[in-house]
């Protein structure tokens, strides 16, 4: 429509795009390298300086090329650390920023516009919450406003905003229909890594880890119960069982992994017999990049889909078949009263009597355990003695225990006597093993906040560790030494248990949470986010299938095809409703149509082009190339057209049959010279 290489005169569009680009790169704060972010901020600054006219000259292309080269080298260096995906993200932002600096021509503007749209799409790989969705929606609108502003600069910004808002609202029903109906294809390409998870459990736990975890207010998972919630003290969410102890840290036993692999090869899944009352619930877990899932003991998958996706391990934990790279939902039924005694005692005892190879670590504890074992005969008495020790000695529960580098358990038990749940669990499991009782540490979450009567939200700060000991005749029994030391931890959650300490000390938001209004808002937001992830993000192929089944009764290819066609028709109809009046208005009146046809005929036979000539000029030009008879005919047509269209008594819109006949005759007979 217009030459694309002329410099842009109106700078508002560029400034707007610059702002959008800046906000966009800020929203990608996490994946972006610091210096890349800095460059994109600088580019925005430069663009704004130009917009306000403080300094006009643009950096030369050579400068930018040099800068680009340097940046690529730097990025190449950093790419070794951050991996392919993040490198590509950074490269894109970098290229956008450099383009922004030298943005001068419409072509640049369109490039940057498309890049920004792509970056917005990319942003969804990092953020999917409802707020970010709205935010990105808003950014898309701003982009469109900018480009609209470029195309019609004389309209004011509010006009553009109003118009775009109206158009978006009109487009919304179509978008929703497409969202519901369009086939959900499996992704062609998956993220190499989802996000750098500093938060969340890992399969190796040193006691300090969980304390760090409690500084995070991120959501771990949500569970929606059918029926009543478990009591706060019963909310032990098992994630993984740690059976190997090297004197300092606990990890998943390599032997256990081997056993699991063998069982999988034989397809011999652990199927505990369950009895008693149960809780039914659906868990929506946040991405962890790990295999383990969360359940209350003894949990078994509740429906077919869940049981296909879940492997039940013989340590009573549930494992996902694929790593959890995005939010995932599964259904579980938990039987809290079922004794955990159905595993193979031979394997379990072999794993859970294991002691660190280096016997020189924690000598005091070893001596003390011998003493207890000598004093108490039965397993139950020995366990009780250990628990009593924690209570009698006045152990303290704290998130900030002193460092215990060399003999962690000795120091903890006999010197400092304060620690976090993992310290207690680690010490107790070790002592029990020393006394010949198979024991292990279980890592998971304890507690949960109920937003709605039937939904529990579990956050990272709910991370917890406890002990399981094998008591003959009863199987695995859960002991929670930190619960004995700080009972409030079980009843009211971590927050109350360590109230005197600054809970979530690094998290300013959490302090605000003390305000009732803020807590209310936060709950509201959590609720919204929950519904969003449940209904929008969780709308997968299966749910779509269910919806189609609901609509169609029986899902057959034919019916789906008809439905799709129907939807397309509906959308087409909606669009037609909007556009037909425009087309109607655009349709030229009959006289003009016939005149244009006559002049087209003239163009064809004379090889002239009318360009933007009016009828009089064109008749004069054409007369020189047409045969005399045709020339006079065409002249007459032009005169008649002028009389109809422009003269005082002419009626441009009324159809004149005589004129149309004249045109038809001419079109039939016209001859060139």
């Amino acid at each position, binding site marked *: 429509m217009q030459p694309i290489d002329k410099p842009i005169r109106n700078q508002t569009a560029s400034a707007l795009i610059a702002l959008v680009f800046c906000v966009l790169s800020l929203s990608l704060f996490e994946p972006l390298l610091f210096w890349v972010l800095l460059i994109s901020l600088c580019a925005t600054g430069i663009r704004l300086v130009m917009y306000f006219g403080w300094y006009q000259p643009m950096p030369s292309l050579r400068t930018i090329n040099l800068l680009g080269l340097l940046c690529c080298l730097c990025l190449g260096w950093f790419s070794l650390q951050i991996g392919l995906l993040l490198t590509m993200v950074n490269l894109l932002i970098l290229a956008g920023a450099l383009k922004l600096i030298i943005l001068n021509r419409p072509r640049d503007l369109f490039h940057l516009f498309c890049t920004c749209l792509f970056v917005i799409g990319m942003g969804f790989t990092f953020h999917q919450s409802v707020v970010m969705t709205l935010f990105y929606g808003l950014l898309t609108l701003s982009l469109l406003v900018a480009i609209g502003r470029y195309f019609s600069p004389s309209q004011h910004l509010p006009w553009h905003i109003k118009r775009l808002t109206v158009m978006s609202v009109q487009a919304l029903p179509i978008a929703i229909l497409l969202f519901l109906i369009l086939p959900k294809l499996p992704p062609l390409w998956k993220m190499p890594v989802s996000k750098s998870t500093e938060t969340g459990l890992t399969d190796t736990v040193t006691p300090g880890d969980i304390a760090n975890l409690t500084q995070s207010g991120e959501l771990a998972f949500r569970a929606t119960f059918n029926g009543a919630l478990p009591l706060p003290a019963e909310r032990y969410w098992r994630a993984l069982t740690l059976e190997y102890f090297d004197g300092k840290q606990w990890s998943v036993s390599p032997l256990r992994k081997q056993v699991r692999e063998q069982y999988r090869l034989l397809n011999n899944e652990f199927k505990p017999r369950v009895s008693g009352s149960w809780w039914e619930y659906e868990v929506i877990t946040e991405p962890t990049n790990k295999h383990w899932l969360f359940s209350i003991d003894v949990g078994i998958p509740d429906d077919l889909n869940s049981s296909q996706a879940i492997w039940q391990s013989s340590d009573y934990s549930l494992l996902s078949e694929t790593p959890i790279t995005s939010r995932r939902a599964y259904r579980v039924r938990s039987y809290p009263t079922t004794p955990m005694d159905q595993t193979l005692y031979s394997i379990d005892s072999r794993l859970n009597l294991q002691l660190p190879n280096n016997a020189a670590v924690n000598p005091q504890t070893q001596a003390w355990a011998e003493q207890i074992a000598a004093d108490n005969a039965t397993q139950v008495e020995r366990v009780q003695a250990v628990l009593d020790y924690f209570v009698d000695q006045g152990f303290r529960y704290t998130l900030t225990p002193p460092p215990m580098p060399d003999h962690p358990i000795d120091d903890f038990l006999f010197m400092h006597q304060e620690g976090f749940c993992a310290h207690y669990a680690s010490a107790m499991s070790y002592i029990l093993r020393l006394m010949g009782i198979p024991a292990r540490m279980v890592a998971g979450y304890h507690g949960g906040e109920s937003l709605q009567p039937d939904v529990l939200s579990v956050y990272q700060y709910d991370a917890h560790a406890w002990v399981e000991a094998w008591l003959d005749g009863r199987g695995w029994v859960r002991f929670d030494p930190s619960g004995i030391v700080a009972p409030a931890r079980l009843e009211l959650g971590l927050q109350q248990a360590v109230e005197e300490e600054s809970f979530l000390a690094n998290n300013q938001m959490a302090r605000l949470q003390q305000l009732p209004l803020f807590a209310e808002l936060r709950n509201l937001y959590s609720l919204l986010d929950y519904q969003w992830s449940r209904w929008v993000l969780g709308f997968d192929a299966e749910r779509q299938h269910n919806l189609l089944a609901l609509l169609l009764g029986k899902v057959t290819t034919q019916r789906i095809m008809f439905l799709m066609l129907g939807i397309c028709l509906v959308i087409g109809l909606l669009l037609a409703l909007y556009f037909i009046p425009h087309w109607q208005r655009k349709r030229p009146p009959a006289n003009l149509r016939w005149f244009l046809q006559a*002049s087209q005929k003239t163009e064809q036979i004379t090889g002239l082009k009318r360009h933007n000539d009016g*009828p009089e000029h064109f008749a004069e030009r054409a007369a020189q190339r047409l045969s005399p008879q045709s020339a006079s005919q065409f002249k007459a047509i032009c005169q008649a057209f002028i009389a109809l269209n422009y003269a005082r008594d002419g009626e441009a819109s009324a159809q004149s049959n005589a004129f149309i006949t004249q045109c038809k005759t001419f079109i039939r007979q016209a001859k060139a010279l």
Partner: protein
Amino acid sequence: MHTDLSPALAYLDSQVLGKQHQIKLAVTCLLADGHLLIEDLPGMGKTTLSHALATVFGLHFSRIQFTSDLLPADMLGVNIYNTRQGEFEFHQGPVFSQVVLADEINRASPKTQSALLEAMEENQVSIDGSTHSLPSPFFVIATQNPSYQAGTYPLPESQLDRFLMRISLGYPDGEAEKRMLRESAGVSSHHQKPASQVLSAEQLQAIQKQVSDIHVSDPILDYLLRLVNQSRDNSEFPYPLSPRASKALMRAAQAWALLHQRDFVLPEDLQAIFTAVAEHRLRGSQTDYREDGLLSQRILDLTDPLAA
């Protein structure tokens, strides 16, 4: 039906040789009751044209040479104390004339420029609280040197807008210049025509009234609006056309049609006057008349008069 203007045009043609189109535009401007801005280098016949225009329509002519020290009072007139009668008496300045040639308007200070432009807009002059009407018809022909020349104050956009048209005479073609030289050397076979009045001021005013009766049909109005909107919706054009510009376009097209003895406007009329009326409004003050192509021509190229 209408007064035949061809004798007037013939006379003007004989005075300024080889510039038929520009002469027609100048007459159109006069008929449309607008003011004319001529931008050209010195010695291109600006003064000759204005003189001839005044003569042919029998109008009283005066000329104001603008310089940097010209004051508004020098142009508008002053109140002078008459000792004999013991009161102030207004002495009219050169602006009280039917055709005013404001020569080199961009050499004067902005203050003086705006005094003239105010007079053009209001058709009256206010001095010391009393208002004096200007004669009618009142037609200002301002000439301006290209703004790259030294010692010029370019007219701001708002004041450029007051001029209905801006034209540029340009160099005559070789043939015309030869003819001109021959005539001025006195070797011409026939003598130079004496200054002759073809029409009277009253007749001119009657014609000016007829201009607004020229029929403008709907398709023409649509075409005009398409032209104007093209300048507004397309970012190529830094100064979009205002509604005042649309009015000016219509009036100039009507006058052009009248000059061609038609009682309705054709697309060709609009096309003929479009550059003269629109170019200076589209371009603003900072650039000169001739640059990389005309913006108005670009608008004409983008807009089809026969589109629905």
